[in-house]
């Protein structure tokens, strides 16, 4: 087909809004990602990875580059996040698309490249100080540097990463965090001061300002463990030997302070029902402890009082031999000669009150005592308030006074606050705060309005009504008995599994906000629709057949196309009885031209193949198949009977239409509709003695051997027809 020249920026993502309110229309996963990763786009690009390993490797780096641009911590997220998966339209059907595992593969490849990735331009604008180097601080620093500001991170401890350093290594290898952070500093030219104490005996914010920093972002996290309380008063005896915060254990293990058999033959009790409590329990188990976890919540996670930790955590911990005791609180810590001995645990009858406030109630007649050598309290974390008190950043009731949108302190100009210290959440949420603060700081320094145009409303894109749901691949874990160490136990997906899983993505969002197919080189630009209203006969077939519900009736005449929904399959153009619709780049005349070109390129016209591009098959070696011509189509549904007949008229012996299997069809019904129309045509051809000249088959995307087999089979059929005729 005549080559189309890619337009400049034709692969650039555009924001699409719908409805009278102009809400941003996006796939729900992308609305869920605090960092706005172009999730659908990277899935499409992975689904369309070239077969050639070197080209595929380049493409993966390109995908990594795109994700990195928005989220420089993405390799870390690929181990610990999954907010997008919670909102996946697939989730309630057969299980969410495993985005985390897809990104893991990209991250694993990208990390090797990251060490040598080019740096951002050297920043030369004003200086900004970021206090705290957790995900929020790092993200803010990166974004500011991207915008040209000179950033210094001040970190109290001796290494960067904040709460990331508390994640057990069986969940994420230390090297990943190290590598991501060191590359980030290099790429974004970020200056670092370790051991920098702010507040207390350390520096005051004014001292920092005096050093020339125009704005400060405080992201100091929640490094302090929360104490056990009963009726609002702390539970006594926390100073007994053996009682400590779970956080301390996580820190010490990651720092290599705790010996590998730290808890050998010790009875360890962990208090808490969140993910961190499970991190602590599973860490203690790996140190040889016999671990019991006690939590207020019950087993039924769907109920108001259900356990908050992820299902995977509970399942994994149980497999590892951790006993979970549900619906029990701790009202008394009992010791013996200064050492921890046991806890008193009445049954918890409810955790939250009617208003959703934390207010546990107990049945004191139903009490058990749990014996142990070690008690690890992991019931939440709190801010270190020193600096906030000292700097007058707390309002009435000791709460941080921060603007929700700009993240600037309401009490001190030029001071921005975000991350867990503002609101405890996921790492990605802290990063969103960092990003948001960077935007505010940029505006603040430039003297612009801090709030204008900041708040966006979103509308979820639903799945296509014809969606075909494929089963979710299981996560494979190393068996429990073999994983009681600090090696990651979640098996990565292979490249094949990644492509397969990426193809499960239904690409719910609008094409314009994705353009993964363009980025993957499938087409030079997203095709538009040309509609000739004068030719239209109002039959409604286009609207009925459109797999994306993109066509609606105009009253009193004609149809309109909603290009925010169109997926460019061209089925409307193929079914229109009046030929009033054209799919740009695949106009009828262009396809006719391609047929003529294919004829001229062959010595003896043999077979013409219309190949759906989403099968991702490379072009044929002309030397091996001199009598086969191939025309790429955006979907098998685009192929029209008149093109097939035209090819037969021009002398091709047979026409083979190759589509993706129905369950793989990017437009859900494209493959099925193509088959239907081709069968009808074949039926008519058989009426004039030309049966079996047209074939339809499906080929699993990227399965060259299936393609070869189908082509060979069709070739034999056409040859046998030819030899019969010559006889």
């Amino acid at each position: 087909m005549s080559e189309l020249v890619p337009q400049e920026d034709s692969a650039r993502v555009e924001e699409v809004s719908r409805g009278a309110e102009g809400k941003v229309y996006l796939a729900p996963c992308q609305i869920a990602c605090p960092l706005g990763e172009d999730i659908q786009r990277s899935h499409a690009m992975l689904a369309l990875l070239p077969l050639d390993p070197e080209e595929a490797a380049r493409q993966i780096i390109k995908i990594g580059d795109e994700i990195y641009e928005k989220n420089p911590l993405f390799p870390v997220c690929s181990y610990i996040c999954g907010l997008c998966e919670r909102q996946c339209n697939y989730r309630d059907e057969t299980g969410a698309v495993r985005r985390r595992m897809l990104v893991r593969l990209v991250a694993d490849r990208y990390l090797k490249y990251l060490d040598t990735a080019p740096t951002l331009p050297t920043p030369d604008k004003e200086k900004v100080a970021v206090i705290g180097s957790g995900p929020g601080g790092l993200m803010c620093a990166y974004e500011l540097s991207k915008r040209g500001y000179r950033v210094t991170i001040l970190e109290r401890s001796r290494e960067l990463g904040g709460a990331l350093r508390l994640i057990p290594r069986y969940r994420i290898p230390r090297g990943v965090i190290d590598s991501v952070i060191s590359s980030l500093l290099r790429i974004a030219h970020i200056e670092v001061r370790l051991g920098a104490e702010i507040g207390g005996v350390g520096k005051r914010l004014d001292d920092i300002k005096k050093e020339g920093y125009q704005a400060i972002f405080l992201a100091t996290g929640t490094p302090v463990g929360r104490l056990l309380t009963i009726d609002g008063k702390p539970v006594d005896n926390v100073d007994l030997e053996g009682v400590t915060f779970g956080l301390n254990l996580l820190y010490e293990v990651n720092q290599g302070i705790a010996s590998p058999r730290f808890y050998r033959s010790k009875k360890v009790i962990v208090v808490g029902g969140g993910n961190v409590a499970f991190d602590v329990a599973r860490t203690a188990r790996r140190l040889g402890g016999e671990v019991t976890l006690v939590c207020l919540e019950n087993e039924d996670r769907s109920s108001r009082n259900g356990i908050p930790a992820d299902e995977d955590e509970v399942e994994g911990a149980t497999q590892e031999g951790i006993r979970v005791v549900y619906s029990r609180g701790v009202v008394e810590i009992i010791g013996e000669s200064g050492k921890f001995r046991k806890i008193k645990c009445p049954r918890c009858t409810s955790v939250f009150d009617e208003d959703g406030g934390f207010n546990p109630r107990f049945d004191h007649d139903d009490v058990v005592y749990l014996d142990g050598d070690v008690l690890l309290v992991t019931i939440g974390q709190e801010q270190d308030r020193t600096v906030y008190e000292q700097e007058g950043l707390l309002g009435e009731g000791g709460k941080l006074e921060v603007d929700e949108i700009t993240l600037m302190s309401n009490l001190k100009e030029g001071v921005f606050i975000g991350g867990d210290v503002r609101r405890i959440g996921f790492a990605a949420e802290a990063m969103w705060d960092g990003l948001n603060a960077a935007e505010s700081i940029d505006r603040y320094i430039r003297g612009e309005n801090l709030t204008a145009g900041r708040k966006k409303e979103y509308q979820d894109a639903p799945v296509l009504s014809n969606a075909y749901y494929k089963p979710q691949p299981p996560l494979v874990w190393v068996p429990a008995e073999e994983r009681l160490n600090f090696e990651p136990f979640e098996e990565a997906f292979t490249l094949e599994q990644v492509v397969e899983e990426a193809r499960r993505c239904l690409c719910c969002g609008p094409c314009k906000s994705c353009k993964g197919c363009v980025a993957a080189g499938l087409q030079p630009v997203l095709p538009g629709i040309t509609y000739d209203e004068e030719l239209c006969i109002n039959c409604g077939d286009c609207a009925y057949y459109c797999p994306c519900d993109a066509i609606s009736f105009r009253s009193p005449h004609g149809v309109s196309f909603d290009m925010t929904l169109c997926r460019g399959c061209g089925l409307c153009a193929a079914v229109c009885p009046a030929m009033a619709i054209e799919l740009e780049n695949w106009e009828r005349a262009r396809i006719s031209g391609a047929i003529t070109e294919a004829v001229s390129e062959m010595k003896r016209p043999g077979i013409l193949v219309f190949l759906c591009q989403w099968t991702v098959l490379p072009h044929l070696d002309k030397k091996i198949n001199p009598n086969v011509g191939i025309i790429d189509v955006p979907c098998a549904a685009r192929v029209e009977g008149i093109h097939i007949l035209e090819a037969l008229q021009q002398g091709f012996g047979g026409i083979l239409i190759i589509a993706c299997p129905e369950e793989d069809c990017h437009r859900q019904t494209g493959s099925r509709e193509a088959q239907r129309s081709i069968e009808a045509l074949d039926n008519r051809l058989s009426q004039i003695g030309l049966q079996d000249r047209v074939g339809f088959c499906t080929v699993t995307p990227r399965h060259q051997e299936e393609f070869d087999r189908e082509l060979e089979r069709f070739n034999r059929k056409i040859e046998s027809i030819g030899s019969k005729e010559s006889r």
Partner: protein
Amino acid sequence: MIVTTLKPLDEVLGFILPYSDILVVGCDGCNQPPRGLREASTLSQLLDLAGKSRGKVFNFKMTTVGKQCDDYMAASVLKPQIGNAEAVLSLACGLGVQTLAKVFPELPVFPAQNTHFMGAEDRDDGILEMRCAGCGDCLLAVTGGICPVARCPKGLLNGACGGAKDDKCELSPEKDCAWVLIYNILKRQGKLDLLKGYRPPRDYQLTGWKIPT
């Protein structure tokens, strides 16, 4: 809409075999499925291939008309295009074929389709079904929008016959009894009293065959 089906190609080929220059005319009117420019083109291509395999070369010209059954429109649109055509192949219903025969009295006009009935389309079930018999005395106002003349094989006007079983017609267990449908819809609308009136036998003269415009 007028429901049509394509004739077998060999039958059509038989019509046109004596001729070489043929005007193939689609119809963008009420024909269902639509047989517009696309079908004119597809049919010509198929007949061209069929002709070639029999050593016959046709010269097809394809066009379409808004409504073939309007003699004024058909003449205005097609006469300038007729050129040296020796025959006309119509993709309309029988009405269009006859109108073209009137517009081109000196040329043979052939039907490419068989014409069946006035039908309505059920997209989900993928069927076209007869829903109007053109009786000239529309009853739909009192039968809940369901026509017993077209949909009851006996054309009964005053309720179901004794043959209805399990809400189905005695002719076929797949065919709904029109009067059961009528009863159900009127019941839902609280208008069962409409069934109390007696309707006299149909006046077949009302069907008519000619109406002044």
